[in-house]
C-alpha cells in the first residue's frame, strides 16, 4: 500500500540499526506487504490490565513500506493500536487529537486518507478490532479498569443487530470489576482478550475468550501459570502469545500451551503472520533496550531485523492486506433479564474430582460497590448436576458446599453470564478439553425450572432449596 508524497518522511529519525547483542547483524528484511507498527518511547504492555497507560509518553502509528516508515496519520497528538479491516481498505486505531484528550477510536480509509471518528466515548477507548457483521470491539475505560465494548463499525445499515436484546448502540461484552483488554478476533468469531487470572480478582495476565455478544466467557486453556498476553491467531488456527518474555502457542490438539522455539529475546507479543508464513515480531535483546520489528521464519535460528527506531519501541505490527473474515457469531441470547446455568457434574475438576457430590451450590455476586453478595443456594443432585437461574451481566462465582454448609470448593475468580444466556458447564474448572458425557442430568429429571439464585426478593423459595421461577 503506497501512501501519497504528502506524508513527511521520517527517515531521518528512523534507522535500520545494527542489532544489539543477541541479534544477528544482517541486512534488513522486509515482508512483501506493507505493515503498520506502533512506535512509543515507553511501552508497558500490561499496564492496561491494571487500568494504566501502555504508552505513558505517547505513541505514533507508522506505516512501513519497503523498509521505510512514515506516520500513518497526521494531525494527532498520539496514535496506536492499528487494526486493518478484513478487506484491507480501512484501519481502526486509537488516537488523541490533542495531548490532553482521551484515547478515542478512529477509522482511516486508505484510499483517500479520510479519517472519521468511529465512536465517541467519555473516557479512553483503546485497541479496537473489527468484528465480522459490521461491528467492532474495543477496550473502554471504566471505573474498574478497561472493559470490552462493541458497536456497529459504521459500515452497515443500522438494522443488523448483533444482540436482539441490546439493539443498536454500545454493547458491553465483559462484566468484571477488573480490566479486560482485547487481543484478537479469532477465525471462529470469538474475541480473545487479556485479563488477570483468576478472572476479576487475580493479577497474572491470562488469555480468555468471549463470544461477540459477551456470552460464553472462559479461559482459552486451563493450564494457568506464568503470564500469557499478546495473543494473535495464525492462519493455522494456533494462537501465539508471549509467555513471560518468550513465545508460546495454543494449538487445537492440545489442552496445554506448547513453547515456541524461537531465538532468545524478549518478545512483546502481538505477532503478525506474513503471507509466506514468517512472523513479524516485536523483540528486544534485554529489558533495558527497545523493541524492534524482526522477521522470523519458524525453525530459523535467528531473527532478521526489519525495522528499528532509535529511542522507540516498535510494537504491535499489523499487515496492511486483506485477510479472511472471521465467522460472525449469531447471538442466540434470549430476551431475559437473567441467565440460566447448568453444571453437568460439579464433582469434576482439573483440581481433582470430588469423590461425592457436594450438597449444595452457593452463588455469590459482586454488587456495584464491589461488595460480595450471596444471592442464594441450590441443591446439587447426586450425579453432581445443578440448574440455577442467576443474575445476568454481573460478576458471579460459585462455591460448592457440603451438607454442613462448609465450602468444599470455590471459584477463585469471577465470571459472568449474559442476559438471556443459557450456559452449560461440564464440571467446575475442568478445562476446554473435557467434553460432556451423554446423559440426562438428574436435576432435569427432578425439574426443568432452575433454582432461582438471582437474589430477587421473590426468590426466597429457591434459597431454601426449592426451584424458583423461570
Amino acid at each position, binding site marked *: 500500500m503506497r501512501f501519497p508524497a504528502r506524508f513527511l518522511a521520517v527517515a531521518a529519525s528512523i534507522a535500520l540499526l545494527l542489532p544489539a547483542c543477541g541479534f544477528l547483524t544482517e541486512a534488513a528484511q522486509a515482508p512483501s506487504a506493507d505493515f503498520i507498527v506502533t512506535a512509543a518511547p515507553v511501552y508497558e504492555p500490561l499496564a492496561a490490565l491494571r487500568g494504566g497507560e501502555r504508552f505513558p509518553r505517547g505513541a505514533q502509528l507508522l506505516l512501513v513500506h519497503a523498509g521505510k516508515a512514515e506516520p500513518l496519520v497526521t494531525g494527532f497528538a498520539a496514535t496506536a493500536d492499528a487494526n486493518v479491516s478484513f478487506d484491507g481498505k480501512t484501519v481502526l486505531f486509537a488516537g488523541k487529537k490533542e495531548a490532553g484528550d482521551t484515547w478515542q477510536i478512529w477509522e482511516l480509509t486508505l484510499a483517500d486518507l479520510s479519517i472519521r471518528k468511529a465512536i465517541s466515548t467519555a473516557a479512553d477507548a483503546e485497541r479496537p478490532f473489527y468484528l*465480522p457483521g459490521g461491528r467492532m470491539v474495543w477496550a473502554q475505560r471504566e471505573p474498574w479498569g478497561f472493559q470490552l465494548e462493541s458497536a456497529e463499525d459504521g459500515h452497515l445499515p443500522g438494522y443488523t443487530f448483533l444482540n436482539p436484546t441490546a439493539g443498536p448502540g454500545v454493547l458491553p461484552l465483559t462484566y468484571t470489576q477488573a480490566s479486560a483488554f482485547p487481543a484478537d478476533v479469532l477465525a471462529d468469531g470469538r474475541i480473545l482478550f487479556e485479563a488477570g487470572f483468576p478472572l476479576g480478582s487475580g493479577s497474572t495476565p491470562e488469555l480468555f475468550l468471549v463470544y461477540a455478544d459477551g456470552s460464553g466467557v472462559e479461559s482459552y486453556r486451563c493450564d494457568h501459570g506464568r503470564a500469557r498476553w499478546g495473543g494473535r491467531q495464525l492462519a493455522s488456527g494456533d494462537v501465539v502469545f508471549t509467555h513471560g518474555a518468550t513465545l508460546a502457542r495454543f494449538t487445537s490438539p*492440545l489442552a496445554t500451551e506448547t513453547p515456541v522455539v524461537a531465538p532468545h529475546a524478549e518478545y512483546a507479543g502481538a505477532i503478525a503472520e506474513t503471507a509466506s508464513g514468517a512472523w513479524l515480531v516485536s523483540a528486544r535483546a534485554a529489558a533495558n533496550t527497545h523493541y524492534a520489528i524482526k522477521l522470523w521464519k519458524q525453525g530459523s535460528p535467528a531473527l532478521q531485523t526489519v525495522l528499528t527506531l532509535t529511542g522507540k519501541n516498535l510494537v504491535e505490527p499489523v499487515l496492511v492486506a486483506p485477510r479472511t473474515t472471521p465467522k460472525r457469531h*449469531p447471538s442466540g441470547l434470549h430476551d431475559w433479564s437473567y441467565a440460566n446455568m447448568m453444571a453437568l457434574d460439579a464433582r469434576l475438576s482439573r483440581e481433582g474430582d470430588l469423590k461425592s457430590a457436594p450438597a449444595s451450590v452457593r452463588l455469590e455476586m459482586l454488587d456495584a460497590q464491589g461488595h460480595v453478595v450471596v444471592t442464594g443456594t441450590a441443591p446439587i443432585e447426586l450425579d453432581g448436576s445443578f440448574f440455577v437461574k442467576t443474575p445476568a451481566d454481573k460478576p458471579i462465582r460459585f462455591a460448592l458446599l457440603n451438607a454442613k454448609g462448609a465450602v468444599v470448593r470455590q471459584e477463585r475468580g469471577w465470571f459472568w453470564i449474559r442476559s438471556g444466556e*443459557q450456559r452449560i458447564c461440564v464440571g467446575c474448572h475442568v478445562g476446554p*478439553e473435557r467434553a460432556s458425557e451423554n446423559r440426562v442430568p438428574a436435576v432435569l429429571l427432578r425439574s426443568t425450572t*432452575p433454582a432461582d439464585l438471582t437474589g430477587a426478593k421473590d426468590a426466597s423459595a429457591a434459597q431454601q432449596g426449592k426451584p424458583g421461577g423461570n
Partner: protein
Amino acid sequence: MSRRIQTAAGTGLAAVAVTSLAVAFILAGSAQVPQASQNTVPTPEPRTFPAPTNLNVLPKNLTGQQVHNIMEQWEASLGAQCNSCHTEDPNNIGPKGRPRLNFADDSKPMKAAARAMYSMTERINKDYLAKINSSGDPVTCGTCHRGSLNIKPFVPPSDAALPITQKLPGSREQPLPQANAGDAVDYASPLELLFSPDGLRLYVLCQQSEEVRVLNAATYAVIKNIAVGRVPRGISLSPSGDRLFVTNTWDDTLSVIDTRTLAVTATWPVGAEPSGVVEDRTGKHLFVANRISNDVAVLDAATGEEEKRLLAGRGASYLALSPDGNKLYVTHVYPNLSPHRTAPESEITVIDTARAVVLDRMPLHGVAGVFHLAFSADGRIGVVAEYHPKNLVPLAHLEHGGYFVDTLTLFGADVGKPIEVPLDELERYASRPFGVAIAPDKSRIYITCEGSEMVTVIDVPRLLHFIHARPRPASGSFAYDLAASANYVIASIPVGHDPRGMTLNRSGSKLFVANRLEDTISIIDTRSNRVAATIVLAGPKTVSAIRHGEQTFYTSRYGFQGQIGCANCHIDSTFDGITWNLEPDGFGRNIVDNKMLEGLKGTEPYKWNGGNPNIPTECGPRTEKYFWRSEQYDDLTLADLAIYIRNLPTRPNRWKMPGREMTPAQERGQALFTRDTDKFGKPISEYNRCSYCHSGPKGTNQKLFDVGTHKPNDNGTLLKSAPLTEIALTAPYLHDGSARTLEEIWTVYNPEDKHGRTNDLTKDELNDLIEYLRTR
C-alpha cells in the same frame, strides 16, 4: 441418487414454478390455527397480547395473539426485530427499565415499508399466482428476504463467468450438457472403491449414475461402465476376484458382475435396502446387510437363493470379514431402540461365517451411527467409524464437543477390551467418520471424515501406546477427552466434498478416496500424507442447485469449529433414530424426536409444534443461531439447500403391494383407519378418526392438535399431525420419541382415546392398523 431421483427432483422443481424456493404462506399460520373441535384445544396463553388498535393492511378482526403470531413469522422471515418497525415509548418503561414499544405508532418509515411490501405480496398471490395452476407456494416476505433485511442484489453472471456454485435461487435445474453416446448424463457420485486382486483395475461404485466404473489402475482410463440397479450402495469382490457384487438399495437386488467379461450375469432379489455385501472365503455363502429389515441375509453364493436371515442392528449396513475369513462383522447406522431418554446403544454383530449364525453382539455404548469397519492384515486390530452424540444434554453450545464427538471403537488382540477413542481436537473436529482403511504394515489407520471433508491419519503404534498407557476409563471410552487425539492423530488431509469409501493399493503407498459430491477420487501419497493427484470422473461439470444444496447438507463447515452438519442428525438424508433437547425450548423441555426428511414437500409447517412455516425458516437464521451457532451459508446457498431438502424423494415403500392391492391385514387396517364408529357402534367424531388428522397423500392435514401425548416438560399441548411417510422406518414415535413402537402409541400413550379412538381395539386389530400404516 438414481436417475429416477433426478427425474423426480426435476418434476418437483417444475411444479414449484415461479416460487420454486421452499416457502410457505406466512399467513398460513393463522389459517392453520386448529379448528375448534372436540379434541383440539386453544393454545395456552402464558402471555396476553392486547387487541391491536392500528391495523391498516392486516385484517382488522385479528386478535392480539394472531397478530403476535404473524409478527413472529415476519421476524423470522426478515431477520428483523420488533423495534425495526416499532418505536420505543419513553413514557412507558417496562420492568427491565427499558421503554416499551408503541405498536400503534406509525412514525418509523420501516413500518410503512413493511405494510407496502406485505400488500405487494398479497397482490402477487391474489392477482397472479392464484391464476396459475400448480403454481406452488405463495409469495411471502421470506420468498425474497430469506431471514435477512439486507438482501444482497443478485447479478446474473454471464455463462462464461458462472461460478459453478452460483445459481439463481429457485431456478429450475439447468439442462445438463447434451451427452454424447456413452457419456454419463448424471453425476457419478462415487461412493465406494476397490481394487481387483491383481491391482490392475479400480472398481468405482457410482451411486447416482448407478454403475460401476472400471478404471485402469495405472492410467485411470475408463475400461468400462457397467450399469447396475437403482441407488447402489455396497460393493465387494468374491475371494477369487471372478465376481463383483453390487447391492442396489432402491430395487432390493444384488447385481453379480463377471469380472472377466465385465457384464452383469445375474440380478438376484434380496432383502429390504441391501447395503453391504460379502462372500465368505469358501464361496458357499453371500452375506447381505439389509438396512430396512435390520438383518443380514444369507444367500447361496451360487444361486442367490436366500437361506436365512440373521438379526443385526437397526439399519444394518456395512460388513467386514475378518482376515482369516472365519467371522463377519456387521455395523448399523441407526441405534437400536433403547428406553426413552437414555444413551443410544449400538452393536457390532459378529457372525460365524461357517455356520452362518450370530456369535456375538459387541455393544457400542453411547454410539448412534456406525459405519465402515476394517481389520489390520494380521487381524489383531479391528476399527469401526462412528458418531458419539450428546442428544441427552441440552444443546446450549457447540464448543467442547457439545453436540457430537467423532470416534472410533478399537477391538482385537492388540487392543484388549474394546475401547472408544476420539478423533476430534479441542477446536477442530473430524466430523462424521465414515470409511476406514488400515495400512498393510499396520502402521497407519485412515479415516474419511465426511463433514470435515478430509482424511484423518492415525499412527497405530502411538495409538496402541496411548490406550495401553492411559488408565482405561470404566466407561470404555475416551470420548470425553478432546486432547486425546493429539497422542495418535498425525495428519488431516483435505480432500473433496463428502469423502466416503477408500481403498489402498497393494503396497499401501497410495490411498484412493471417493469424493461423492465432487465426482472425483483423491489419490493420497501415504508417505507425505498429501493429495498427489485427483481423478476427475466423467459427468456434468456444472453444479446444479440440487447438487449444491446436497453439498451444503453434507458439509460441516458451517457448524461452529466445523463440528456438525445437517447430515449428522439426518444420516444419508434420513433421520438418526434418537431424540434431542434443543436449547431455546428450555433445558430439559420439549424433548423432540428427530424426523425423516424424505417427502417433506406438502407437510408444512415444520417442527413438532408447527413453529416453522417453511424450509428456509427451518434451515435459515434459526438453524444458524441454535444449531450451527456460527455464521452459516449465504441466501443463495440456503435456497439451494432448501431445494435439495424439499425435493428429496421418498424411497420405495416395501410394505406396499403393487398397484392398489392390499393384503387382507392392510385392508382391515385401512378400515380401522377410516372407521366412523367404534366396535360398540358408537360414532367416532370426525376429529377423532385417524383419517382426519392423518389425511392427504402424506398422511397429515398439516394442523395442530392436542392428542394427549404432551408431557409435563412440554411447553405446549398442540402438536402438528405427523406425516405418515415411511412411518415403518422411523421409530421411535410421538413428538418426544417416547413410544418405541407404533403399538405403544395406542397401548401406552393413548389412555383417553384423544389420539384417535383405539382403546376398543384388540392387539390383532392394532396389528392390522400397523400393517396399513406401514404402506403409507
